[in-house]
């Protein structure tokens, strides 16, 4: 493996760790952006240019901004007095460590049987478009429906309804 892979992986993992360890929530969102950028670089190093740029556009461009908006709207940047970790953080840490142990064990056990092709796949945007419009047209339509429903649902859920108290009576 090249040195670039190790550098980008370290960047991603440090960004992810910082995103869950920092006290200030806004700093967490910025660290999350670093982790997303590192993942986009990993996708690019895997010859998946389209997914890499989609990652930058969707996650860094939209999700990270959305997280920052939510933090500022809920005044979550103020550090609470009684700590940032929940009461049962020991249990959560143990569960996460156990899951990592199982995943790592599975990966290391399967080293010999994993497939491994060295030839670089040539994927053009035209191929992706053709696949989306022919073989994957039904999933594409379902995702379009899901995104529309999620957008309308998010607006309705977060909408401030002034008549809510009156209708509740």
């Amino acid at each position, binding site marked *: 493996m090249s040195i670039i892979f190790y550098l980008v992986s370290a960047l991603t993992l440090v960004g992810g760790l910082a995103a869950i360890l920092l006290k200030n929530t806004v700093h967490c969102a910025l660290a999350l952006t670093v982790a997303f950028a590192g993942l986009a670089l990993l996708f690019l190093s895997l010859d998946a240019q389209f997914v890499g740029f989609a990652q930058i556009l969707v996650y860094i461009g939209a999700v990270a901004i959305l*997280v920052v908006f939510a933090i500022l709207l809920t005044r979550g940047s103020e550090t609470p007095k009684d700590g940032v970790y929940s009461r049962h953080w020991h249990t959560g840490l143990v569960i996460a*460590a156990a899951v990592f142990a199982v995943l790592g064990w599975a990966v290391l056990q399967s080293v010999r049987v994993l497939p491994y092709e060295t030839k670089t796949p040539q994927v053009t945007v035209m191929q992706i478009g053709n696949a989306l419009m022919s073989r994957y047209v039904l999933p594409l339509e379902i995702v379009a429906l899901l995104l529309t429903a999620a957008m309308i649902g*998010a607006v309705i859920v977060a909408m401030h309804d002034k008549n809510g108290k009156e209708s509740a009576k």
Partner: protein
Amino acid sequence: MNPLVAYLTVAAMLFAIGLAGALTRRNAILVLIGIELMLNAANLNLIAFWRYGPHPEALTGFMFAIFSIAVAAAEAAVGLGLVIQVHRHAHSTDLDAMNRMKG
């Protein structure tokens, strides 16, 4: 070292980090950040298997990752909308304080 194993190891670490964040933080937005990290780790697995699999020209894992990104974006929008509404209702995003199903 098999490059596929290296990518899978990174994805496993990222998944564990996201899970730890989702299970230990008390701010609801930080829990959502942990969930996003876990989804991204799964995407990395999909792309790594697509790249080093026997048939990369079939674009299967590639398309799965694209659809997964779209679903994750929808999840983030609805999740953060819910967090804002809960904050408006309970004046807090502290998950330890959310101990009632009925407002």
